[in-house]
């Protein structure tokens, strides 16, 4: 109680010191929770995807696969991978750009302001098409169905052993497509509606009618989904692999961008990854990346931010230590006479140190608690700022996250401030002999 009374005797300096410590703690929480939020997002999005191993063309980094040449014989590779009992599912994927419209050819017969036949404004949108074979997919997730169903034809009948016979008019061409919520909104369509898709957009407005009549393939929207890993700037759709291949003009050699692999529970993912590259039938042509490797590679990108945030926190903590240490030294020096009297009446040095230690600890504890509040407030501000600045963030992205790890790190920093800034100076100064101290009364 004596310590607390002493603290409130000098309210001005106490308040300023507590504010300084709390700002330092609050800043540390914001910085650490930002790193933790992004790391958690990466981990969660990868985990939700359900993909254990990503298989791409030999030597190509998984992130850059979409810019490189596709895999050939993707179904044969996928089937060969299933020979390993540790692999539960292997699903080929072809990812490429598709231009789409939710309007039929008749909708384009508008006379625009200049009296020309065409559109008053662009109603053709770029999207990311994802070709898949539903029955070959494992429990790959990261997507939640909002309406309708997910490609009701489970197989890929149009493929017909690579013949793609009859083209888009074939009775085996399912014309099924699932849109993500952003694309459905852009195209202004719902389940059961018809959309037109093509590899290339028309070159000019004059070409729109020809484009919509002759260069597109129609699809029926069977479902609408939400992807946790893509934002609104990447509208996308899912269709059968062979239909995507046909749309892209890639009907030779069963091309795909990558193969997603799901391993059996209890199987070592890294062993499977090594097996694919070294022992599988097509291993010489493949590179396999485990989800752990991918996570580690993604964390490399955030490592700069983490190191930089850590540097800011360390420097700020150092300033706080100088702050607290100087104030403690000044406060104790003001009370040297008091220390002398206390020692002269027989109170041990340890008790005197304890008295000042308690005072410092109370100030640091108040700063820590206020810092936690400021940190929580700061985290909300950071969240708000990022979300309001970027309207196309993926729904699965967590900006900030106050984890036990974040609190642990912040507590260590608070502990450092209190020990180095408070306790050490208290201990050194209160070791003054009673006679010397009494002379200052």
């Amino acid at each position, binding site marked *: 109680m004596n310590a607390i009374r002493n603290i409130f005797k*000098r309210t*001005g*300096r106490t308040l*300023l*010191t507590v*504010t*300084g410590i709390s*700002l*330092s703690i*609050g*800043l540390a929480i*914001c*910085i650490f929770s930002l790193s933790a939020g992004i790391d958690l997002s990466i981990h969660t999005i990868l985990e939700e995807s359900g993909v254990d191993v990503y298989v791409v*063309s*030999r*030597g*190509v*980094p998984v*992130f*850059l696969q*979409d*810019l*490189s*040449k596709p895999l*050939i014989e993707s179904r044969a590779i996928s089937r060969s991978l299933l020979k390993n009992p540790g692999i539960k599912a292997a699903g080929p994927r072809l990812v490429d*750009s598709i*231009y789409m419209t939710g309007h039929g050819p008749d909708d384009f017969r508008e006379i625009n302001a200049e009296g020309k036949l065409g559109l008053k404004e*662009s109603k*053709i949108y*770029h999207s990311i098409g994802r070709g898949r074979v539903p029955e070959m997919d494992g429990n790959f997730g990261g997507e939640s169905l909002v309406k309708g169903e997910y490609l009701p034809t489970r197989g890929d009948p149009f493929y017909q052993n690579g013949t793609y016979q009859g083209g888009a008019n074939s009775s085996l061409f399912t014309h099924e497509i699932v849109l993500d919520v952003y694309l459905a909104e852009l195209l202004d369509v719902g389940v059961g509606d018809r959309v037109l898709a093509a590899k290339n*957009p028309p*070159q*000019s407005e004059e070409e729109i009618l020809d484009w919509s009549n002759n260069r597109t393939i129609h699809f029926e929207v069977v479902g609408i989904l939400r992807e946790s890993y893509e934002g609104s700037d990447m509208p996308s759709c899912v269709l059968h692999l062979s239909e995507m291949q046909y749309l892209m*003009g*890639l*009907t*030779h050699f069963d091309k795909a961008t990558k193969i997603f692999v799901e391993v059996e529970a209890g199987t070592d993912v890294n062993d499977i990854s090594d097996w694919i590259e070294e022992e599988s039938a097509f291993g010489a*042509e493949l590179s396999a990346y485990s989800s752990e490797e991918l996570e580690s*590679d993604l964390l*490399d990108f955030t*490592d*700069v931010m983490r*190191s930089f945030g850590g540097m*800011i926190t360390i*420097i*700020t903590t150092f*300033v*706080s230590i*100088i*702050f607290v*240490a*100087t*104030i403690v*030294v*000044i406060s104790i020096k*003001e009370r040297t006479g008091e220390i002398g009297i206390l020692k002269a009446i027989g109170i041990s040095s340890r008790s005197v140190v304890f008295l000042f230690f308690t005072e410092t600890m109370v100030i640091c504890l108040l700063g820590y608690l206020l810092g936690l509040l400021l940190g929580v407030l700061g985290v909300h501000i950071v969240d708000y*700022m*990022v979300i309001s*600045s*970027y309207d196309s963030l993926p729904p699965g992205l967590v900006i900030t996250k106050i984890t036990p790890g974040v609190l642990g790190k912040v507590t260590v920093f608070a502990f450092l401030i209190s020990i180095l800034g408070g306790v050490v100076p208290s201990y050194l100064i209160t070791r003054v002999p009673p006679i010397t101290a009494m002379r200052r009364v």
Partner: protein
Amino acid sequence: MLKRPGRNIMTILAVMISTSLLISILSITEGMRSRNAASIETGNQDIIITAMGYKEDIPHGREIAESLENDSVNVSFASPMLVSLLFLRYKEYLFSLDPEYQKHLIDGTVNDTLIKVFENNSLTLSNKANLSKIDGGCWEIVDKTNRYRIQYTGTELNIYYSDKPYLVMAIGVIPEKTEQFLSEEKAIRLFGLEMQFNEWFETPGDPHFNDSYKGGYTGEILISDNLFEGIGPKKGDVFTVGSENSQENVTITGTFGSPLSGGGIFGKYFQGILMMHLSELQSLVGAHVVSDTGKVEDRISSIIISVRDEKKDASEIDGIAMELRNDYPFYSVLTKSDQFARVEQRSEIADIFYTSAGTVSLVIGLLFVACIMVINVYERQKEIGVMRAIGISKKTIFTQVFGESFVLIAVGACVGIIPGYFGSDYISDFMCAKYGVEMEITSFSLALVVRCVLYVIVIGCLFSFYPAIKASRLEIIDAMKKP
């Protein structure tokens, strides 16, 4: 102030650290801005047309570029480009053998004669090495991690060391078109990368495009300095580009400086940049024809445009861009100022975050100053009381305390410039090493220093009001009573 040197030194130290941190942090966003501004000022790329997608999504690229040049009264030059990933492989020439040695090239194993030949050329080949025939005139020896190629040239057997492939970012250009966009220093900024050319292509046109991609194949490539230095090519080495399955022999005709160092995060994904003739890159990556039908498609990634000299005014360029948007509604048409605004928008949030973090750190330092001044006022209450008693005004007391605080802050802020410079330099080096680039990431300018020091002083003055007001409001009687 000199009576209490210890506390004043600590105060100046805290302000100095906070200021240097602020300067170092803000030098990052300053660097972003100055790079952005420099890219706008240099080169004559006024407008860029790109595909909405992320691949080579503009079909009939040459046709569009030529129609822009021929039909428009606005455009001086238009150059189509393609960007893609490729493998650059090289076979380091080691030595040659008489064709008779073919009889020793037996599938599955290496014999003693071959091991001896390698020994004579200062190379070790183990008897466990595996030899395999690749095609009629090519064999491969795999010895642990070493791979050797033996190529029959018709007159002799050339032995090469097969090194690992380099994944590179390949840019396909029509040299005579792109050359128009080079600055006086032979530099160009493409896809966000500044490139400074030491040499240029020998063939100005793009002959392979003729006769539906059946024209002459030049095989000319320019590679980035870091790649050239990493490989260290010598006479006789053979270079190929392409994927695992389709490769074409190429010749290095020159090099260029680029920001890539080949290490760091970027180096993990691609090791350098390569430039080649547009049609040759298109053929390698399958952007030349429709895969199914073989019909010429000429797909490209972007077209850079330089407007006529008399139309270089920003508003004229905006007008031309608007026309292009109407003509090509399904492509993205960006002027330099659009690109600038885009980068500014992207860096805005980083700017706010860095400024906020720096300000919080600064506020801690300034709170320290305020706290020390509060203590000083507390310790000098009697002195202030005496001063007030002999007729010194409240305003003078206020000015004295405020001035003392101002001096501490100003000295700390000015001294903080020096560690701020080193901090900015360190951050630049740190980020360059992490990302694998060689460029000035941060910018330590006079404007930045002045802005930061003024910022520290202005905020510092706000914090100095509290102790100064406290001192000036002391009652004479109460102050005189203090010990």
